[in-house]
């Protein structure tokens, strides 16, 4: 008797296929390496066609990421990843659109776009690499820098309270909100896969340590604080997430909130389909009819 061993067909795209040959400019030990690696694996798991995928960013260390992904990419201007990503997704809904950036880019200069992209609930996965500092401009306080921290721009300590990006996303109307850690690869890949598969605006805040401006031990400190959400956690309850996000001594990761609501594209498509009825192959000539005196 011979047994037939079925060799599973190799997936078409391997994680390495998403890696561009551009060498990252990041410092050795930067948390963003973990994020981009997780992205290669998540894209491979989802078998995203690179040519139908666009990675969009603003400006900052982490915003260099699109250059390192073998797909279409747009490294735009500071704070504006989400408006660009919004335009791409609305104009061409069949594309997979991933937006990436840092905490300064997304929460300070781009804060307003974060609000509106969340509330529109467009099918975009937004990965925010949170290192609690401005890295590219060399070490100034960011909206997520803990109060009291001394940075290049807060010589006497940060006088401002910090914000939590996930709390913002939940209240802004994002329908999938999660927190991950760049040093926890397996969980991070799972979160990215879930975020990229989510129907609607998915927000993933990745704690991504900056070894240069936040100290060598930020990795260790975060790793030691790492916890998972407890069994039975109700991710459909917005309010349930808040206590976990306000913890100081532990860092809880996982999907904090998830809701299933129509995305902006669902709504636009519905309107568009109805609007087109009776106007198939609309010509300029036909449009001009509305300017004729109607009597």
């Amino acid at each position, binding site marked *: 008797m011979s047994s037939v061993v079925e060799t599973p067909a190799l997936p078409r795209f391997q994680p390495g296929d998403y890696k*561009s040959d*551009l060498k990252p400019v990041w410092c050795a030990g930067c948390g963003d390496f973990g994020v981009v690696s997780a992205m290669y694996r998540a894209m491979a798991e989802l078998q995203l066609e*690179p*040519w*139908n*995928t*666009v*990675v*969009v960013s603003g*400006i900052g260390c982490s915003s*260099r990421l*699109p*250059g390192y*992904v*073998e*797909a*279409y*990419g*747009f*490294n*735009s*201007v500071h704070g*504006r990843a*989400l*408006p*660009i*990503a*919004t*335009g*791409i*997704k*609305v*104009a*061409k809904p*069949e*594309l997979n659109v991933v937006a990436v950036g840092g905490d300064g880019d997304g929460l300070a200069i781009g804060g*307003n*776009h974060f*609000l*509106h992209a969340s509330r*529109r609930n467009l099918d975009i996965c937004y990965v925010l690499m949170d290192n609690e500092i401005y890295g590219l401009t060399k070490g100034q306080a960011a909206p997520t820098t803990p109060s009291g921290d001394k940075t290049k721009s807060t010589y006497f300590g940060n006088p401002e309270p910090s914000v939590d990006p996930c709390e913002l996303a939940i209240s802004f109307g994002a329908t999938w909100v999660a927190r991950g850690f760049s040093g926890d690869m397996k969980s991070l890949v799972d979160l990215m896969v879930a975020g990229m598969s989510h129907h609607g605006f998915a927000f993933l805040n990745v704690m991504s340590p900056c070894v240069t401006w936040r100290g060598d031990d930020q990795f260790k400190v975060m790793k030691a604080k790492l916890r998972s959400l407890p069994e039975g956690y109700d991710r459909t309850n917005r309010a349930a997430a808040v206590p976990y996000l306000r913890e100081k001594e532990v860092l809880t990761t996982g999907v904090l909130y998830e809701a299933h609501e129509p995305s*902006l594209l669902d709504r*636009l498509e519905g*309107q*568009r389909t109805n*609007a*087109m009825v009776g*106007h198939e192959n*609309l010509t*300029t*000539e036909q*449009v*001009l009819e509305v*300017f*004729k*005196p*109607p*009597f």
Partner: protein
Amino acid sequence: MPTRDLTLAMVGSGGDGVVTMGEMMAQAGARDGLNVIKVEAYGPQIRGGESSCVLRMSAEPISAQGDAVDVLVVFNWADFTRFKGEVVPKADAVILYEASDPTPLAEVKIPTATNATWIPVPFVDIATKATGTKAAKNIVTLGILAELFAIPQESVRKAVEFKFGKKKAAVLEANLKGFAAGREFAGTLSVDTSARKLEYVIRDPKLVMTGNEACAVAALHAGCRFFAGYPITPSSEVLHFLSEWLPRAGGRIIQTEDELSALGAIIGGSFAGVKSMTSTSGPGLSLMAEMLGLAAMAEVPTVIVDVQRGGPSTGLPTKSEQSDLYLAVFGSHGDMPRIVLAPTDVEDCFHATVDAFNIAEETQLPVIVLSDQAIGQSRQTVEKANLVHEVVDRRTPNAEELADYKRYAQTPTGVSPMSVPGTKGGMYQTNGLEHDETARPASSHVMHEKMSRKRFKKLDFVEEKYPLFVHLGPEKADIGIVCWGSSKGPVEEALKELAAKGVSVSAFVPRIIMPFPKKALLEYMASVKTLVFLEVNFVGQLYHYLRTLVDLPADTRVFARSGGMNLSVTEVKNRIESVLSETTVREEVRA
């Protein structure tokens, strides 16, 4: 002798129906094939408040709103005084005013109306008696005006029928009674208005549209299928029109959180391969300055319609000015190529916008259409047959180019084939950073120089292919006017009047500001003796900009003044006459 050209003005409060009345007459005129230009003005109130409507109807081609009006209808003198200087009756105008107005006629001073015919009309009384409500007084007025000035009677009646046809039969009947009562009242007046009766032959109906609507239709025509915008006066009608028609055409539209997101979104849409546009006014364009640079650097075709209003800052939101030229031409940091077009009237808003899409796609640059409130919101008749314009599409890479695809490949024109997402083998990661041919970030000074040259080379192509300008008047002239945008209309009419008086004057009106048609300007300068700039902005932005491009003669005269009031034909004539008298004095001194 009857007239072939009649300008009417109507002034009242919200609820008087002034704007509705103007619109119905404009539509009636267009139905009869007349040429019509209609301009509205409002007080600062959001709803209600005073409003005025100036309507010019002519059997001949016209290019400007009437300066001084032949007929003035005033429902309320208190409202009229708020438009002082904006609504000016001719010396022998016919003035119809509410007989029961509390302001005594003795207190009404209209210095221009030296020889006017004043007709008190009990608008409210007639309306109430005929229809049961004073709300119909605008319909009564239509009847009076139709009778006194022979404005398209049959069509006006049809306009009334159309307006109220969908309501209860009693409403339509009442309004038709109001219309008849107006005509009947006019018949009882013993005034001679024969010189102001409009004489014309009925022709095919014309279209009636605003410049903003023309921009919106042009976008559809050019193949625009994505629009992102933020509401701002006086450009919002572009957004409004497209919110209805873009989805019908299979496109998509979003209202963004601000103007820089709007331009950001259309950069995204265009990057994704869909022709995209936004529209705004000066304050929005200020915010877009950042994104303009990105569009130029990443070489993404984008079209931005800027309907100019008075500035700086919030300025005069509802009134026209030509003061965004510097911002459009120079705005955004770094060495940034861009194209700036300047439509001259409603019809030209259509052509300029299609050109903008064509040039944007051909050059992969941001193109700004510098319209202004005076054409954006004025309603004019347009011949449908004129609204045709060739459409150019994007240069995408062929199979051979995709084999070793370089997004920013150096080419003789500077334009590189642009791959769109979805194309296998055409992948690239673009950048607001300086980059090399493959879009990889590059900060060497050598590459920066090379890529700057590539980006600017594209302007040479545009200057060569699109030397857009209009030359008005004789081939050679003593005086040569340089003006742009909505100023073309009054200049064109002034030129005709001046020519009739034997004045030798022509005009050069650029329809593209950047890159400027320098060759055409130099040739024009050689055809005139004295150059006169007429601009509706305080500093003379076009004049100063052109001084950076060509050597303008030292005796060039510049008449630049702030906006808020559109250039008038009289103003143009006065300026030219003042130059003439100075020149005469100078020549006499020389002699």
